[in-house]
């Protein structure tokens, strides 16, 4: 052996460690690729299931909207009516703050009632009274407000059905 350190190191490096058996490589190969293959299968399954879900399964809003569409429309109408009614009430009885501030508010511009349909309901006989003809009147009330400053316009339409009994003697 040489006493020079670098030569001594080179001489040591020239001796190669024993290679492991083929069994070690095969054992590792069985474990690592199995994991990768399993992960690949799981990933592909997840992608496929996601794609199927995207294509076939309806979305959240798609599922609930058909059921809630009419409920939503009704709620919207009720809200509009409620706002209009509360506006009328507050307009009739203005608060102290409104009076002191004297801020301009929405004012009624138009109130109309249009006859939409009249349906003959036939002759009805009330107890101990003369016979009468039942008529159903379907009308549409329309209220319009505007804001004097901003010019904003608020319109509310309220469907209404009236049942009227017209004595036959009067016809």
């Amino acid at each position, binding site marked *: *052996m040489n*006493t020079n*350190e670098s030569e*001594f*190191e080179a*001489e*040591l*490096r*020239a*001796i*190669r*460690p*024993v*290679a*492991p*058996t083929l*069994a*070690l*490589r095969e*054992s*590792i*190969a069985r*474990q*690592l*690729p199995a*994991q*990768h293959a399993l992960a690949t299968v799981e990933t592909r399954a997840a992608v496929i299931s996601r794609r199927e879900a995207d294509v076939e399964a309806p979305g959240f809003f798609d599922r609930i909207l058909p059921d809630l569409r009419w409920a939503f429309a009704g709620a919207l109408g009720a809200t509009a009516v409620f706002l209009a009614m509360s506006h009328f009430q507050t307009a009739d009885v203005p608060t102290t703050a409104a009076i002191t501030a004297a801020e301009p508010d929405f004012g009624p511009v138009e109130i109309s009632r249009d006859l939409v349909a009249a349906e003959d309901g036939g002759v009805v006989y009330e107890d101990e009274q003369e016979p009468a003809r039942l008529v159903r009147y379907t009308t549409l009330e329309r209220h319009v407000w505007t804001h004097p400053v901003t010019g904003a316009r608020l319109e509310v339409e309220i469907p209404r059905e009236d049942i009227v009994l017209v004595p036959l003697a009067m016809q």
Partner: protein
Amino acid sequence: MPDSLFDEEPWRTCYAQLAPKLLLFARQWVASVADAEDVVQAAFVKFWRHRPDAGPEHYPLLYAAVRTCALDLLRTDSRRGRREQVVATDFEEPFFDPAIERNESSELINAALLHLPDSQREVLVLRIWGELSFADIATTLGDSINTVASRYRYALDALRRILKSHEYQRV
């Protein structure tokens, strides 16, 4: 399945480069080749499952994993007590490849390594046959670079003295 299909897998490249070095490193704690291969397999699989995209810059952690697995095996099997005896007499399974032109040297170095303290031998093995820098060895062993470098100098000097004494004995 043909090997060529896996040639691009990082772990196979790593295995081809490091397997003999890892086995030699593992045998610093477990003398038998079978146990050392078990250690390398456990560490290698654990490492690549944890770091599937590992590159050469991460290989010091692989050596650290081998060391941890070897020490775990010693603890679980209570082999530490009988390890010295096994190492001292286990010449049937050499550390190095007994190539014809270097067979004599490899036997001498094999025997000389067994006389080094553990802390010096592991640094020498990582530096000479693992081809790691002092910084990487420090990362692997959890020591400072200065400590690692000084242990390496001591190991090199001690190995040289041992080999000289062996040569004198042979003469």
